[in-house]
Structures are given as structure tokens and as C-alpha cells.
């Protein structure tokens, strides 16, 4: 049964690589289907090594420690890719703030495969071995293959597929769609369709689920040079 949730989400990656995140539930929110009990959670904030959950009055519901996230090595890689890319477009020309050329360059730098499908449609493929420590799980692949599709002429991400690199089974597929913002005239992210396929090795069954995310008031600020 479809469930509709509206959130205002903010992810900030600081120059030193520190990641903070906040998510606030917006109304109206519609949960369709069988009766479910009322959800007290309204706001989630992750900062430092702590995630905090708040209700609608701002009262703290609970807190939990989480490992401190730092993505400085990735930022350094992205800065290098930005410098290496063929077409040094300034960020403000990238609809929705995407730097497609830098992303493709990043995949190339990691030894990934780049294919041209014509009319700017570009496919990138690279594989990543997951860190060890999950040997007990039958459902966790040891290696994932990431396939991404971009349109370099439009400077847009078209979609992405993730595969279990060992079995070849598709894990998820995402398609991005765009709209033209009425006030700025810029192309902005509109809807993201995600189909995910969850294989359970214990039962041999695969569950499919579809999620549609609609973006409103999307903004992306890229201060990297």
C-alpha cells in the first residue's frame, strides 16, 4: 500500500569532511492502508556522534550515539576530479547543482568503465568490494556493481542501477526526472523513481518495492574549488 511522507531534509558536508543531517516531517502526511499507530517523531538531527529524535513540541524523544562521519577523503577525490574534468563548467550552470562531468571523471579515476550511448547519454560502471565484517549474513553481497547513466549534454543524472556483482542480480534501479522551475527557469530535480529488489537467501524469495520521491524547493550549494 502506498504511503506518502513529506520531509524537509538537509545534508551538510563541511570543508573538513564532517557530515551533519536533519530531517523534519511536513504536513500533510498521508499514510494509506491498514490502521497504523500515531507517529510521535517529527524531527531528526544528526550532528557530531549523536542522532536525536524530537516530537512536534520539540521535546527530545530519544538519542543514540552513531559513529562520527567524515568524508574528507571523498571530498579530496572530488576536488581532484573537478580539476581533471574535460569541460570545466562553473557549478551554477549545472541544473540542480549537479556536476556530471566531475562525477564521470571520478568514476574514471577509480578505474571504472565509461560508455557513450549517443546524444550525450553516457553509462559508467564500476565495482566496489564491501568492507569485511558481514560474513554471517547470507543476504549481504561481498561486491556491488554500480551502473550510472548521465546525459552530459544536459548535465543531468538520468538514473542508476546497482547489482550484486557476484550473482549479477539487480539490487535497485533509480530513474531521475526533472522539471523547469517557474521563477528561475532552471531545470530542477522533480521525481526520483526507485525500484529495489531484496533477495532473501534464506527463503529464496525476492521482494520488490517502489518508491517515488518528489522534490520541492531543491537547492544544492557546491563550494568546492
Amino acid at each position: 500500500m502506498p504511503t506518502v511522507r513529506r520531509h524537509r531534509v538537509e545534508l551538510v558536508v563541511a570543508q573538513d569532511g564532517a557530515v551533519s543531517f536533519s530531517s523534519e516531517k511536513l504536513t500533510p502526511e498521508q499514510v494509506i492502508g491498514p490502521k497504523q499507530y500515531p507517529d510521535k517523531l517529527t524531527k531528526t538531527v544528526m550532528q557530531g556522534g549523536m542522532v536525536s529524535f524530537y516530537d512536534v513540541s520539540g521535546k527530545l524523544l530519544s538519542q543514540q550515539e552513531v559513529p562520527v562521519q567524515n568524508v574528507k577523503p571523498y571530498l579530496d577525490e572530488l576536488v581532484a576530479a573537478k580539476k581533471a574534468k574535460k569541460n570545466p563548467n562553473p557549478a551554477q550552470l549545472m541544473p540542480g547543482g549537479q556536476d556530471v562531468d566531475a562525477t564521470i571523471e571520478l568514476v574514471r579515476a577509480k578505474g571504472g568503465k565509461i560508455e557513450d550511448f549517443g546524444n550525450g547519454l553516457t553509462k559508467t560502471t564500476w565495482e566496489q568490494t564491501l568492507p569485511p565484517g558481514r560474513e554471517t549474513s547470507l543476504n549481504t553481497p561481498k561486491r556491488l556493481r554500480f551502473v550510472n547513466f548521465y546525459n552530459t549534454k544536459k548535465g543531468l543524472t538520468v538514473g542508476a542501477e546497482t547489482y550484486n556483482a557476484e550473482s549479477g542480480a539487480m539490487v535497485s534501479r533509480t530513474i531521475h526526472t526533472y522539471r523547469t522551475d517557474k521563477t528561475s527557469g532552471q531545470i530542477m530535480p522533480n521525481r526520483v523513481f526507485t525500484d529495489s529488489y531484496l533477495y532473501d537467501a534464506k527463503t529464496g524469495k525476492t521482494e520488490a518495492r517502489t518508491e517515488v520521491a518528489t522534490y520541492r524547493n531543491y537547492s544544492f550549494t557546491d563550494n568546492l574549488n
Partner: protein
Amino acid sequence: MKTKQLLLTLLLLSAVSAGRAQIARDVHWIHGLGGGTSSWESTANLFFNERLINTAIRGDYETGQGAGEMATRIRTASLPNAGNNLIGIAHSMGGVGIRQIDVNNTGHFGAIITFGSPLRGARIVNAISGGETNSYVANGISKLERGPLAQVGIIMPRLLGINVTDWLANEIVGGIVAKLSLRNQTIPDLSEESGYNQAFYGSGTPTPKLMMWGDEDSPVHVRLAASFKNMDENNVVTAWDDARYFYGFMEEQNRIQGYLPWNFIARWQANEWQVGHEYMFSQSEGQWRAMIGASFVQTYPITYWGPTPGATEQDFWYCADNNLFDGDCPYNQLYTGTTQIFTNTPTDGVVPVRSQIAENTAWRPNDPNFIRRLGGDNHQSMRSSDAGRNELRSAFEGNFGNQFRIDLR
């Protein structure tokens, strides 16, 4: 003369008052599956101190040898008190036994009150005996562990100091199954729509009856487990929510990080956490309800667009790149299939309402007012809840007829 008349009136009033005799009765409190003498203890003592109860019978009746054997033992226990003055109050399986006595030995009880009795059987019995409860646990663990296993450095979320997977296996399912203590002939007797139960569907009796049915709030299985463990329901639900919030947070922040240029792996991690989040939010309860027969499924035909046979990867992404979806994509065609929609029905967490109220059977009360809903009560809590006791008090006040009336001491 006037003085004489007044005196006569006063004498007459006095005579009328003395004629309204106090009603005292015997009460046979009967436990359910796996219960014993303590099952009704607090409620029985409360009303013994409050009402004119001459004899309160609370026995320990074997529940492992089938409903028929239990009924025999119940009847034997209250045989000396049998008759119009005896009220039988039974929980769960005890109500099944009491029905057998009432049908086969009508008049043993002057009135009957059942609480959450599986009068059309209980599907949870089929689920336990058929191993479905084990599959339920295995499926739950598989879903709850996906997120933590996908993300190095994140341990399994805990619920009141216990891993959420252990809670599901040992406290919710394990705890409930252990308390029910199903065995031997009781399994076929209490199964959903069992032959034993069906034998009584057509047998009505004139005995006045009240049927109390529990309508527990969501999440029913978590609240039920809390009651079985004598824990505060709200505290356990809050702890369940805290763990659920964490799954939701991990899903959402990975989803957003997955849009960053370098973090493709976060997209996969978001999906893995989503599985546990959805499980805690609705699937876990939905599957529990399906397992106990407290939901029904309807299948509807649907049509949907999909790639034509032979369409290539390039064809698919050409359409995506050009906003050509469904019928607008030249490489798509229409397919037909079916979809299933689940609808919940009220339950006390163990027995669905239709069985608690002996739906479509001759033994249920004819007057719907004699079928009483206990809102927010589960199979365990209903024996000592305010709602259950208020209904009993109302019955003892005579609000459902004189046969239930027991006056104050």
C-alpha cells in the same frame, strides 16, 4: 385519622423495602489456555470484597488435553454450585469449555460471561503448530539485520537493552508461544474453524450471555508481548518506536548521501535500512495480524506498463532520458496482473473479533448490546483492565438483566 393514614403508608413503604431482597450469587472464574488459579485472582478478589458473592470458585484446569477434557473438569469443580445462582466467567479457552457445558448441560450456569474466547477457534494455534510462527521470526530477523549488516560500525539497534532481533524472537513470539503452552488434543480443538468448534455452531441455549471482546491498539503484537511480560505497554511501545526511528534515520540519511557524487554505496545501504524500517513500522504487525487471522486480503486485477520483449538497456534509458514513461515510451507495452490489498480486522492480539463473539453461531447472544467491546485491551490485559472490570461491574449492577446481578455487600 390523618396520623393513622401516614403511619399506614410508612408501614407499607417499609414492607416494600424489606421485600426487595439482596441478590447474592456464586461465581466460577475460569482461566484460559495455560492459565491457572492466579489468572483471575485480582479481579475475583476485587469483586468478592465488593459484591455479595457467596462462593468464588477458582480452579486450575488442565488445558493440554483438549477443550472437552477441560470442560469436564470445569463442570466437576462447580457441580455443587450448579444452577440458576451460578455465574460462569471465563477467559479465552475457558469460554470454549463453558460453552460445551452450557450446550450439553444447560442450566449448569445461570449466566455466562466470556472474555476473548476463541469460539470459532484461533488461527494462531494453526500458526504455532504448523511452524508459521518460526517463519515469522526468521523473516523478521532477516529484515531487521539487513541495515546493521550493510553498514560497518553500526550495531544492531537495541530495545530496552536487548537487540531488536532478540526481542522479536524471544520476547514477542517466543514469549507469547511459551505462555500459550499449546500441546496434544488442544491443538486440533482450538484450531481455526476446528471440527470441535463447528460441532457447537448450531447449538443455541436460553442461558443469558455476555461476550467481551478485546480490540487492542496498534501495534497489537508489541502491546500483547508487553502484557504477557507484565511490563507497561506504553514503555515497550516507546522503546519499539525508538528503535524504529533509528532505522528510519539510517535509511533517510543514506538515501540523501547516495545522491552525493562519490557515495553510490549509500544508495544500497539506504535500501537495506529501509527494509528494517518498513518492517518495524507496519510489516511486522501486518504479518502478525495475518498470522492470527485478523486481516483479510482482496485481490484486484491491474494493468501496468513494462518493457517489450527484446527491448535493450539502451532503449530503456533512452526513454528515461527523454521523460518517456509508460505508454509514451515506444519500447513499452501493457501487461496485466493482480494486486493484493490487506484490510485489518479488530483483534485482541491473539483471537480475531469474529471468533471472540462467536460470529454466525447460534450460541452468541441475540441482542448485540450483550456483545461488549473492550477498547485498548489485548488477550492478556482484558482480565484485569479497567474496561473489563467496568463491564463486569455494570453486569453485576443488573444493567444486562437480573441473571447477572450481584448486589453490593
